[in-house]
């Protein structure tokens, strides 16, 4: 009975996962740790993508807002000699305010316009970063000053890793609080039935806007975080292709898994591409093929496969009624992500 209870809560794996994450720097060297720092950054990006998927809006401007965070922090440190920690709130503010200006145009026009407008914005923004002298041009900014805590220079990979972990856990905590609240309920409702939600009095545009801006805030934080371990900021890092990879992370991890999906996806894809370092030019092809295969044969992603395996094993073990609910997220079936009656938007 107790065992059944343990497995019934689908959070049991959190404890070993957390311990593993904390212990990681003691197993791997500095070079490997840098890879995991990338994984953290990509997880933050993928989480923001997953957040807006919750309200039925795929976004392809993830990398652009990530760049906004990085450039805000980097420029403030370079030009205004500001402390890194002070730039964090400013970069969140810039991302949210600029995001408000951009998205208040596009969110009310529905999913298609939101998506495409985001791409156009990302294109324009990258051009700005690349062409404006102030930002250092296509070659990147000058060497960034080091990030310090008091007089300690933060350049030990282990502490950077832990900083990233703290950011990730903070992100997950905020999402958890949001998802469990009335706000999260409204978001899920919008994602799985936009017209129905609006007929029940949910302000679709308002809640979508709030959702996208929360995502923007965390993207800016991820951008600022990337300043910690980068020598300089190069505009092409924040291009369209990166946004596409972010989308792949989410789908490979599992679209229905609000928290674990993006992280698992980012982890798996980054490790795969890292293990192919010798044949780097083949890496996008492998990623693409994996994504196609996942979409065709496991539309629920790796976690979806894992879960259905775990469920069937548990069912056999406990030989009682289904131990786990089928799908944890509001997204429901893949089809329901956009299964909307065609017609007028709210």
């Amino acid at each position, binding site marked *: 009975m107790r065992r059944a209870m343990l497995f019934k809560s689908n959070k049991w794996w959190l404890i070993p996962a957390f311990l593993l994450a904390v212990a990681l720097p003691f197993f791997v060297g500095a070079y490997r740790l840098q890879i995991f720092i990338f994984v953290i950054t990509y997880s933050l990006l993928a989480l923001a993508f997953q957040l807006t998927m919750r309200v039925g809006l795929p976004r392809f401007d993830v990398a652009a807002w990530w760049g906004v965070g990085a450039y805000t922090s980097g420029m403030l440190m370079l030009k205004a000699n500001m402390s890194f920690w002070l730039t964090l709130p400013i970069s969140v503010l810039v991302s949210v305010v600029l995001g408000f200006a951009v998205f208040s145009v596009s969110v009310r026009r529905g999913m298609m316009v939101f998506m495409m407008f985001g791409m156009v914005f990302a294109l324009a923004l990258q051009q700005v970063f690349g062409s404006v002298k102030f930002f250092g041009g296509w070659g990147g900014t000058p060497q960034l000053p080091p990030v310090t805590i008091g007089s300690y220079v933060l350049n030990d990979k282990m502490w950077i890793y832990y900083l990233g972990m703290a950011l990730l856990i903070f992100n997950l905590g905020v999402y958890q*609080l949001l998802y469990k609240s*009335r706000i999260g309920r409204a978001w899920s409702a919008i994602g799985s039935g936009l017209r*129905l939600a609006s*007929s*029940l009095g*949910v302000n679709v545009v308002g809640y979508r806007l709030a959702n996208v801006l929360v995502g923007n805030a965390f993207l800016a934080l991820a951008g600022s975080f990337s300043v910690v371990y980068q020598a300089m900021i190069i505009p092409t890092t924040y291009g369209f292709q990166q946004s596409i990879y972010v989308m792949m992370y989410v789908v490979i991890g599992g679209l229905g898994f609000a928290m674990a999906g993006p992280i698992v996806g980012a982890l798996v894809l980054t490790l795969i591409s890292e293990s192919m370092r010798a044949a780097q030019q083949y890496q996008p092809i492998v990623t693409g093929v994996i994504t196609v295969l996942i979409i065709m044969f496991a539309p629920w992603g790796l976690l979806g496969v894992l879960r259905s395996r775990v469920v069937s094993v548990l069912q056999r073990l406990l030989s009682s009624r289904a131990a786990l609910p089928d799908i944890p997220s509001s997204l429901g079936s893949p089809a329901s992500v956009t299964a909307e009656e065609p017609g*007028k938007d709210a």
Partner: protein
Amino acid sequence: MALLETRGLSKSFGRLEAVKDLDLTVEQGELRGLIGPNGAGKSTVFNLITGFDVPTRGTVWFRGENITNVPAHKIAQKGISRAFQQSYLFMFSTVLENVLVGCHMSSRAGALREFLHTRSARMRDREARNKAMEILDFMGMAHLADEPASSLSHGYQRCLGVAMALACEPTLLLLDEPVTGMNPTESAEMVERIRRIREKGITVILVEHSMEVVMNVCERITVLSYGQKLAEGLPAEIQCNPLVVEAYLGKEEA
């Protein structure tokens, strides 16, 4: 002042005039029947009232206020809810969660409080849950609260649609064919519930194909045909109106 009034309401889809110059007046506390052959424009009228469609011409007035171009969620907030003709539910959430979305408007505690799950927010949430359970109980499906909506039988899915609309605490409830596809027992129960909803003081407009049901529960009936009002009056008057009989000829038992 009438509760709901439409003046010259019209809607065209391309060349098709789905609703044409409709003047409809519904008083507070009424249980109005809206009938008509398939494609007469009944659902379109509901869409126009609730802000899901923008009328080509004409206006909608609710409690003396023009709500013609008001967005759907604001109309819901003003007190008009609807149950859809298709079983349109949050299929992958549980029954209770579905109704909780219906409680969205009444469980507001402020964004920051909700985010931080403060005591007042948790209390609001508990209240909403209680209210949702009460409504489910009223609809006779409290025992299904934790089932996913997609696993419900057709009859219960229709009930859930009505439950969600009720959770909005409406002044005016629009029901689009609530008993379609139900077996006779379920249908009789639903009719009984519609009566009780009305006794609670909620004004109801009922679209229904089954003449038996409409004649039974409604005290006034409006007949639509090709988007136009054909007749309006007491059930008995409607039943022997030659125009109505003609419109329905070969279609219904009327």
